[in-house]
């Protein structure tokens, strides 16, 4: 291989031109993925990402719509490279993996990677990850809410060849198809991933034709070094020290009375940042466990929030970042612990990592958001005899900061999901939404008020509706900052047609019948500053965000 002296050939202009192109290529890959995928979760949940990697498995450029995907492909690509070293790769190869215990995330997320060849040499790698509709296991969609081992969650794929020198691995394809409830969708989406990888590879080859592969690879190294330099620089601006944060999650859906501890110690020193999760609960029985790729995505999200937003995101940003994840803990479970419901754990770890720095970076860190995404799902058989499943993801309020009220009902941190319109829900299922309104008094009181949660009240219009409820923050509130009050915790209940009231203990799986009602109230964000200093409390009352009583009790208004 021809080595070139980077300082001699790399000029800052061409470097920036190439950077713009790499971002364009990643975006084009992501677009290809979104456009050519079949399953709604890709198209509407944007649960997919596309990346370019260096031959050393560092991220060159990435396009992802939700931070859960940020850099999650890194351990995947490393794992593939370990199993299939560069020198064994052939043109037309494509590699596949989904096993969380081999660098994956959870089983529905399947990664596909193709090496990018230029004149017989691998110059980069083009990779995508997509959340697939079904990969087997004991519940449709492969997200069983009460799994206790990964074997129940679906088919595990270790690093394997999906294509070899341009030909499909027929044995593997047959096995994949046989194990999915939606074999056509699965193959369609895998091919969409392959198409996106090929777009990335084609455009990288075109760049190598124009600029020469040696220069291009030298520029890749330069780009990573530059982002590393800038990230270290930004980290040096944070006062050195160790910052701690502790929070509690409700339960794992299996052992309902057992709270789960999330503890982080963030140490900033000499341009590096370390996230130590010692003190976090041992791994849990239910599927809330979060494998290292998830904890790492949370850490990278935190670094992007805490440092200069203009730094181009690539593997260089992650070089100064280290994680300590105690083996056997919630944040680094040991096989065969179940992992499919790890999103709420990633969200909480991410929020905790950022919130730890609140005192050190008051300009960048608000009071904690509710940081939850309530999952509710209704399933049954409609009057037309067809099965329906409708699910929705419901956010709470964001946290307040100096000069800034929290935002009401907005998804925060590692996810970014839309809600379901009442008019969509009612067309799909025998359910009527009776009200969708801001949850008065749920925002943490403060000079700047935390964002409000939402109240949604459902009326069930048929018998035999299965109902899943996966909540968070029922037993802990988002705390306030600088004298601000905590947001209201979540609260959900079932009002049976016969008059009985059942409080939902954060997680529930039950059957609803005609006339039953479900009321969910999502949590509010933390407030900022002494509530008695708030100057706009009269508007809050007029606009229905604070009750007159709360104004008197919490804000000291008569």
């Amino acid at each position, binding site marked *: 291989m021809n080595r070139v002296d980077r300082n001699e050939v790399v000029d800052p*202009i061409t470097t920036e031109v190439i950077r713009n192109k790499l971002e364009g290529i990643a975006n084009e890959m992501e677009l*290809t993925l979104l456009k050519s995928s079949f399953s709604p979760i890709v198209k509407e949940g944007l649960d997919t990402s596309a990346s370019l990697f260096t031959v050393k498995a560092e991220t060159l450029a990435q396009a992802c719509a939700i931070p859960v995907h940020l850099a999650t492909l890194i351990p995947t690509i490393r794992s593939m490279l370990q199993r299939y070293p560069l020198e064994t790769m052939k043109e037309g190869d494509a590699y596949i993996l989904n096993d969380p215990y081999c660098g994956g995330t959870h089983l529905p997320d399947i990664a596909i990677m193709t090496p990018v060849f230029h004149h017989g040499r691998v110059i980069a790698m083009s990779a995508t990850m997509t959340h697939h509709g079904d990969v087997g296991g004991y519940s449709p969609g492969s997200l069983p809410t009460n799994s206790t081992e990964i074997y129940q969650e679906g088919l595990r794929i270790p690093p394997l060849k999906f294509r070899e020198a341009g030909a499909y691995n027929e044995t593997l394809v047959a096995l994949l198809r046989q194990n999915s409830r939606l074999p056509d969708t699965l193959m369609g989406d895998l091919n969409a991933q392959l198409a996106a990888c090929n777009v990335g590879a084609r455009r990288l080859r075109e760049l190598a034709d124009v600029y020469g592969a040696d220069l291009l690879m030298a520029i890749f190294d330069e780009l990573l070094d530059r982002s590393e330099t800038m990230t270290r620089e930004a980290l040096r601006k944070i006062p050195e020290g160790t910052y701690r944060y502790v929070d509690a999650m409700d339960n794992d859906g299996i052992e309902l009375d057992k709270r789960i501890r999330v503890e982080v110690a963030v140490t900033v020193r000499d341009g590096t940042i370390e996230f130590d999760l010692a003190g976090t609960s041992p791994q849990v029985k239910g599927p809330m466990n979060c494998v290292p790729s998830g904890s790492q995505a949370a850490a990278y999200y935190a670094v992007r929030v805490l440092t200069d937003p203009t730094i181009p995101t690539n593997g260089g940003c992650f070089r100064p970042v280290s994680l300590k994840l105690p083996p056997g803990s919630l944040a680094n479970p040991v096989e065969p612990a179940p992992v499919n419901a790890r999103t709420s754990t990633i969200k909480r770890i991410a929020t905790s990592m950022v919130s730890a720095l609140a005192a050190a970076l008051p300009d960048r860190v608000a009071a904690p958001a509710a940081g939850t995404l309530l999952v509710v799902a209704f399933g049954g058989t409609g009057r037309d005899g067809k099965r329906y499943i409708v699910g929705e993801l419901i956010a709470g309020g964001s946290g307040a900061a100096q000069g*800034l009220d929290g935002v009401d009902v907005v998804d925060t941190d590692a996810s970014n999901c839309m809600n379901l319109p009442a008019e969509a829900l009612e067309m799909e299922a025998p359910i009527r939404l009776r009200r969708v309104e801001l949850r008065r008094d749920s925002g943490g009181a403060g000079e700047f008020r935390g964002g409000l949660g939402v109240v949604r009240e459902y009326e069930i219009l048929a018998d035999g509706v299965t109902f899943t409820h996966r909540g968070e923050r029922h037993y802990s509130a988002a705390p306030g900052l600088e004298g601000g009050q905590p947001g209201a915790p979540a609260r959900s209940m079932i009002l049976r047609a016969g008059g009985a009231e059942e409080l939902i203990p954060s997680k529930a799986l039950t059957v609803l019948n005609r006339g039953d009602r479900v009321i969910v109230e999502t949590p509010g964000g933390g407030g900022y500053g002494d509530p008695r200093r708030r100057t706009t409390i009269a508007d809050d009352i007029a606009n229905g965000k604070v009750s007159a009583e709360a104004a008197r009790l919490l804000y000291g208004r008569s």
Partner: protein
Amino acid sequence: MNLSAAPVPRYEVGVDIGGTFTDVVCRSDRGMMRLVKIPTTRANPSAGVLNAVQYMAREWGVLPEQIVRFVHGTTVATNAVLERKGAKIGLITTQGFRDTLEIGRQNRHAVYSVMLKPETPVFLVPGALRREVPERVTASGEVLVALDEAAVRREVDDLVAQGVSAIAVSFLFSYLNQAHERRVAEIIGEMHPQLMVSLSCEVDPAFREYERTCITAFDAYLKPVIDRYLENMETDLESNRVGSALQIMQSRGGVASSRIARRRPVRLFLSGPAAGVIGGSMAGDAAGYEDIITIDIGGTSADIALVSRGKPLIAAEGMLDGYAVRVPMVDVNAIGAGGGSIAWLDGAKSLRVGPASAGSEPGPACYGRGGELPTVTDASIVLGYVDPGYFAGGSLRLQPELSRRAIEEKIARPLGMSVEQAALGIHRVVNANMAEGIRFVSVKRGIDPRRFGLVPLGGGGPVHAAALARELGMRRVIVPLHPGVLSASGLLSAPVEHEAAVAFHDPLDHASATDLTRELAALDRQCAELMRVEGIAPEAVDIQYFADVCYVGQSYHLEIPLKPAGDVLARVRKDFFAAHDRIYGHSAEGPVQFVNLRSVHQARASAVAAEGNYVPEEGDPRKGARAILTEKSGGFVEAQVYERRRIRPGVTFYGPAVVEQADTTTVIEPGWRAEVDGRGNLVLTQGESK
């Protein structure tokens, strides 16, 4: 009509009122076209129209009574939103849903931040002015709870007591059953006839309550403002003896009479840019290209739009001030790169350009208004592209030494390179950014840009066009006669257009062609009534139908042209699969459903003959030479400088060259051939050097 009378000249006038300049284009029935830029009177933009009328009478001898058509493109709707100068309004909703507008869809734009700002336009109507009344329609359109009229009266009275001048009404499922919303409008009309009302079943009869409520609230917020603005303008024109009715450009790229436009202000958001795209498509068409990409490079942004088969692509929703608004508009995609974009070095000394912009105040360093940061325009000066003495036709004298100093201090010296190399670097970086923007917009619509012609607009477009086309492998660039005032001339080319849509959710398998025909006929009646108000004869109207179609379960859809004859349903299915394959790369046999039906009525607007042949001014177009530096030329090369208005059609010349005109400068890199066509467009072709 007295055919023997001496022919009196007839004129059509287009007036595009922008933030800084008001562009006026006047075309006579003898093919003559004149244009002028006059400063916009910020405090009272509609005064610009009168200024234009007076200017035309004074300078061009165009008498007001000879003006047979007066078309206006306006930013007043957009500005009222940006400046929060709409009306105080109330909102009435179904009981239990008064917060729909504020809750929105719960997703956010700032992904990597925990300091969040509201994602929904709460400023339109805060909680205190949002009221709910008992009423309920089910998902199948049946009335479940009757409208509580006493509650309506109570809430309306109270809102009026609070001082609102308009009320928006948005009930659940009103796109299936309009009765309750219409009854509220009647009640308001009886109680307070002066109040303006916007009903969601009229503004946007489609499903998803947040999007419908949001655009309806925007409509009410703007109605009193737009109504006053356009009424004043109508009165002013009348009192100045302009006999013709005022027409307004709408966001979809068609014009409507002012009297109709006043009723539906949310259709004016993209009035100006839509006219630019229409102007660009006319230029492309004249040069034999009906597939073009327009890029309008202004001070802070580059706006990219696609025209396929002569028609601008329409998006079902757009963005306004960061808010998604569901109203059809020409699909204009903005990227944060323009002439005023600032070049800077980041923490690792990488040369970055934008998204911060120097705007027009203080503007690029060369403006000499105190801007000390180097911009793309400053780089253009150093590279020899723009003559500092002939910027905006010489109306603004630029100071090249300030450009050099800014680039030297902020970029060249820290990077240890020459000022010229730094300037070229700024162009290379911003061009890479814009080229990726064009590529992304094309791929998104399933289009290969290499097949398309590039039509640069705005003062900055022609400076960058050849470099962008080279970067993208596009072979042809069409520089319109007046790229800087193309919006105004686009106003004169646009058809009169009225469009109506209705939600129609039937699956294709169960839909009946009879139902379809009935719905389309109802839409036709709405459009025909509007055309009648315009005074346009039915036989002059061209009707097109469209259906929004998706796979069952998909939440996005494609617009498919509809021909209501023969086996319409089978054809829709086939066309949908083909469109899905073209745009998304695949399609599969599977259950398909309708979402909306749409009828679009168009009529030729122009009362005068099409533009005549382009006649250049007399004189030698060559006005000397100067050195320019391009990426392809290696070092500075001597470029011939031409005066655009003197280049004769059919004359061919080659890059390196620079073509100057009052509103822009065209840079022709080495390796390009240039020619002016019969309509005056400057057409550049790549790969044909001398």
